[in-house]
């Protein structure tokens, strides 16, 4: 299928409304990237039941020719998780590593294009040695690692047994005799020179951890042709990195090595097993950390002279609140994903409770509280994480908040501001006390307005929350007007906007797209866009169960196949 095919074939049946057809045309590359036009949707619109009133039986998955496979570098969090899963006992994992790279909003996509710098190689070496020395020095970790008792400092047989098992786990695949032999020889030589088997083993373990077989994910499939199945062991990696953000466990690896993972029923069984495991919470947290860029919160720069509630830990607390909320919604409730926008339940520590004006549920850590309507705050966009991240160091930002809603929640493209333009905003004075007046230039100058009309009216809806998310009714003595409309649907304030977004037909497809990109580590092609539309039908059909979306994604042809090697 080409990228210019009409939407109807992309979704397997005619689009039921002209509006949606227009949107579909925009989706498939006919959209205008300049502002002044309707925002370009980068994911197909929700095709759920709202408009026809009846759920529509989903057809078979569209045939797809996925994009070319790319080698994915482990992200920092995958690196850390993998080491923790590989070794027993307490482990200090260095965090000073090659930085991740955000591409198209996701580190997982960036991981498919970046390499490792010279300094990065140095950092990986230092980290590998630090970890290896710890493992050999810790009685618990060492006992778990050494499956045999060395007969001497240069016992290459025992070294081969130990490192063969470790490399299989770290590299997530069967290891050849030549590969093991090389590692064992290294251990034996250094062991002999140092008169210590353990001393040699440090370098053997470090070599396993520095290997590109560990640091990169090869998910390239086999055979020739435009659509090639990912191999059984590669699929195990894909699956566990998607759901656990880490390497496969022994059961998954063993199933994969038998080739059975290519069987759809086995794959589904394993996907559900992984989702039922505690590690899935870690995986889900990482997914939302990436999508919402929550990793930027710890250490976020906020001026305490402007924001009295800003303390150095507030960002980290805000991140945790959002992640706990997602965890609860997906794992404890398995609820309607869209309720993330409107939930009146919040998980706060004392710091956030003070910011929100509620009583903390617990003196230590985080506890669940209910946010009464009169607080004006609910859902994801009432959380400090969003309100802080999409603000400046000393003020809120209607533009940043609006851009987040468009780009991250609705997957619409907002062009970057043009160069060579005077972007200064007037200072507050008697005639323009609130941000709404000060931003008039954005909306009255046609040149600015072409883009800012897409972002600022949404962002101004959050003006009752300052740059760290504290509620306010006035700015510079004037009452804040937080009303607006989102593509024709009016709202009086952020509380109401939450409902508008909850019901937006773009919300479901957008998160389906996030999950797909996160899972395959690439931006979708035209074929895959159709698949994303199909996956979204399933998402809607399950009442927006995020868990089912994950399983559906795993079973889809886009996840189990790759395109031609290029």
């Amino acid at each position, binding site marked *: 299928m080409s990228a210019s095919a009409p939407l109807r074939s992309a979704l397997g049946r005619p689009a039921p409304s002209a509006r949606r057809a227009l949107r579909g045309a925009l989706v498939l590359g006919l959209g205008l990237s300049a502002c002044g036009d309707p925002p370009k949707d980068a994911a197909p619109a929700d095709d759920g039941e709202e408009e026809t009133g009846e759920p529509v039986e989903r057809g078979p998955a569209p045939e797809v020719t996925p994009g070319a496979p790319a080698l994915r570098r482990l992200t920092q969090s995958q690196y850390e998780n993998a080491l923790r899963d590989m070794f027993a006992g307490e482990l200090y994992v260095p965090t000073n590593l090659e930085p991740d790279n955000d591409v198209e909003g996701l580190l997982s996509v960036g991981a498919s294009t970046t390499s490792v710098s*010279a300094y990065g190689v140095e950092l990986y070496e230092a980290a590998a040695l630090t970890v290896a020395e710890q493992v050999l020095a810790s009685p618990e970790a060492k006992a778990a690692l050494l499956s045999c008792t060395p007969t001497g400092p240069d016992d290459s047989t025992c070294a081969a047994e130990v490192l063969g098992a470790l490399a299989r786990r770290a590299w997530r695949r069967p290891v050849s005799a030549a590969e093991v032999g090389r590692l064992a020889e290294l251990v034996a030589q250094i062991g002999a020179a140092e008169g210590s088997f353990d001393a040699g083993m440090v370098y053997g373990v470090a070599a396993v951890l520095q290997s590109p077989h560990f640091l990169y994910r090869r998910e390239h499939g086999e055979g020739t042709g435009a659509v090639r199945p990912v191999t059984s062991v590669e699929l195990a990696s894909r699956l566990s990195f998607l759901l656990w953000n880490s390497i496969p466990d022994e059961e998954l690896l063993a199933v994969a090595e038998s080739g059975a993972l290519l069987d759809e029923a086995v794959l589904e069984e394993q996907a559900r097993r992984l989702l039922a495991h505690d590690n899935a919470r870690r995986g889900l947290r990482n997914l939302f950390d990436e999508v919402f860029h929550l990793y930027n919160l710890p250490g976020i720069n906020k*001026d305490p002279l402007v924001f009295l509630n800003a303390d150095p830990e507030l960002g980290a607390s805000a991140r945790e609140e959002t992640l706990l909320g997602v965890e609860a919604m997906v794992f404890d409730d398995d609820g309607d994903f869209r309720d993330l926008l409107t939930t009146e339940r919040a998980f706060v520590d004392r710091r956030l409770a003070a910011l929100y004006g509620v009583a903390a549920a617990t003196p230590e850590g985080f506890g669940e509280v209910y946010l009464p309507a009169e607080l004006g705050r609910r859902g994801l966009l009432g959380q400090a994480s969003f309100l802080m991240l999409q603000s400046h160091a000393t003020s809120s930002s209607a533009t940043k908040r609006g851009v987040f809603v468009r780009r991250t929640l609705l997957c619409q493209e907002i062009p970057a501001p043009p160069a060579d333009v005077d972007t*200064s905003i007037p200072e507050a004075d008697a005639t323009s006390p609130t941000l709404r007046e000060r931003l008039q230039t954005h909306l009255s100058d046609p040149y600015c307005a072409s883009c800012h009309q897409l972002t600022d009216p949404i962002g101004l809806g959050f003006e009752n929350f300052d740059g760290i998310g504290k509620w306010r009714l006035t700015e510079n003595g004037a009452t804040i007007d937080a009303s607006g409309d989102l593509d024709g649907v009016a709202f009086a304030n952020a509380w109401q906007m939450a409902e508008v977004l909850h019901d937006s037909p773009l919300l479901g497809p957008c998160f389906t797209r996030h999950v797909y990109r996160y899972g395959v580590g690439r931006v979708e092609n035209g074929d895959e866009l159709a698949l994303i539309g199909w996956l979204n039908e399933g998402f809607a059909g399950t009442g927006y169960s995020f868990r089912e979306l994950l399983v559906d994604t795993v079973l889809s042809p886009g996840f189990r196949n790759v395109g031609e090697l290029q």
Partner: protein
Amino acid sequence: MSTSNRWIERFSSLFAPPARGALRRPVAPSPALGRMLAPPPLSASRRGVLRGALGGAAVTVGLPWLELFVGPTARAETTFPVRFGVWNWGNGVRPEQWRPVGEGSGLSWTLSEELAPLINVKEKLAVVTGMAVKVPNYIPHWSGAGGLLTGLDALGDDEDWTVQGPTIDHIVADQIGGATIYKSIEIGLDTNEIFSFTGPNARAPGETDPFTLYERIFGATFREPGEGGIVDPRLGYRRSALDAVMQDVHALQRELGAADRVRLEAHLDGVRALEQRLARLQEDPPDLEACTRPVAPEVSYPDIDGRVQISARAQAMHEVLAMALACDQTRVFNFMLSRPVANLMFPGSPDGHHNLTHDEPSPQPEVHEITVQIITELAYFLERLDSIPEGDGTLLDHAAILCCSEHGEARTHAITDMPIVVAGSAGGRLVNDVHYRSYTDENVGKVVLSLLRAMGVSTPSWGDGDTFTEDGLSAIEV
């Protein structure tokens, strides 16, 4: 023996095993281990040609690094290594307060308000104003940075962009960085996302922690000149482990598509560089008189009232960097005080830097004040380099440092009237104490080409399309 001859002997020993230092190594306990301790291969990884790096032109960087010590213009002071650096900050300047008064050399020009902190090194600067980055200014901040430092426009949008080729620091490092323990050193004061790339999507991240920077260069493996001592056998073990890693990279490369092979090649370059560094650590340290282990920085510099300790961190990092250069641990650096678009809260400032450039009404006194603070940090560093004696001159005399930002005036995202300071004369190859002003928006790439040539990079041109130039800026060339 003259200094230059000692240098030649020291490094030619790398070519001819057994090296002098071999005698100090522990006796190899087994023939196999002996291989681990053998002298390093030299420059196995150095790419002879950077294809496409400079606007599609093939650029030969094959000149031996020794050129820069004993070239045809050799004189006493050029027996010291020549260093190159990029020292950059984000969000431009206030052009009317940046521009020096008067033009020409010596007494005919004086420093401006924003350049005033550099008064003690004025005689060692070339200031260039009025020149422009000749790329389409599509991506605010990144077009300017890419056009200036790679000669090519950045590609993408503000959310997702990359460069089309290496930044000048890595082009120079390929030329003069091969003989030192570190081919180049990258530092970011507040973020590792510095504007330093070895190629598209291949950022060279900066070290952000002063103490980690110190430990990296002057930690356990560092030996002062003449310190001698037994070479740590672990250096050899680490090299052996890297041998295994290299074999894995080669094996994996064979299974990949073209783009991934390139990515792994970059990784492999890094492994080779590390292996070579370990090998150099097994050699005798270079002996430069001014080299001493610097005072260690604080272990941490926590933010105060939500603000980064900019000056304390910068000074600590500059001290380590100055000694890294004095001890010839590296000859190339990229120091980024703040990144393009940086919204750092400077001391006394009411808002983040980037916000102020856009939100503060002209003439933007707060932005001006921040620029002065930035140049004050630059002055500290340059004065420090100028305090390190080398022969008849100082380390600064043997360096060329391109000090720059990605915008002229950030308020309008202008990439005309770029702020450019070249510090040091690269051992007499560049003119100092001069202000050159262009009235015709000349291509700033001319300055870059002059610098490349001063560093011995043999290239017929720089840039592509509108940034293309075959001429350097004669006003700064000797």
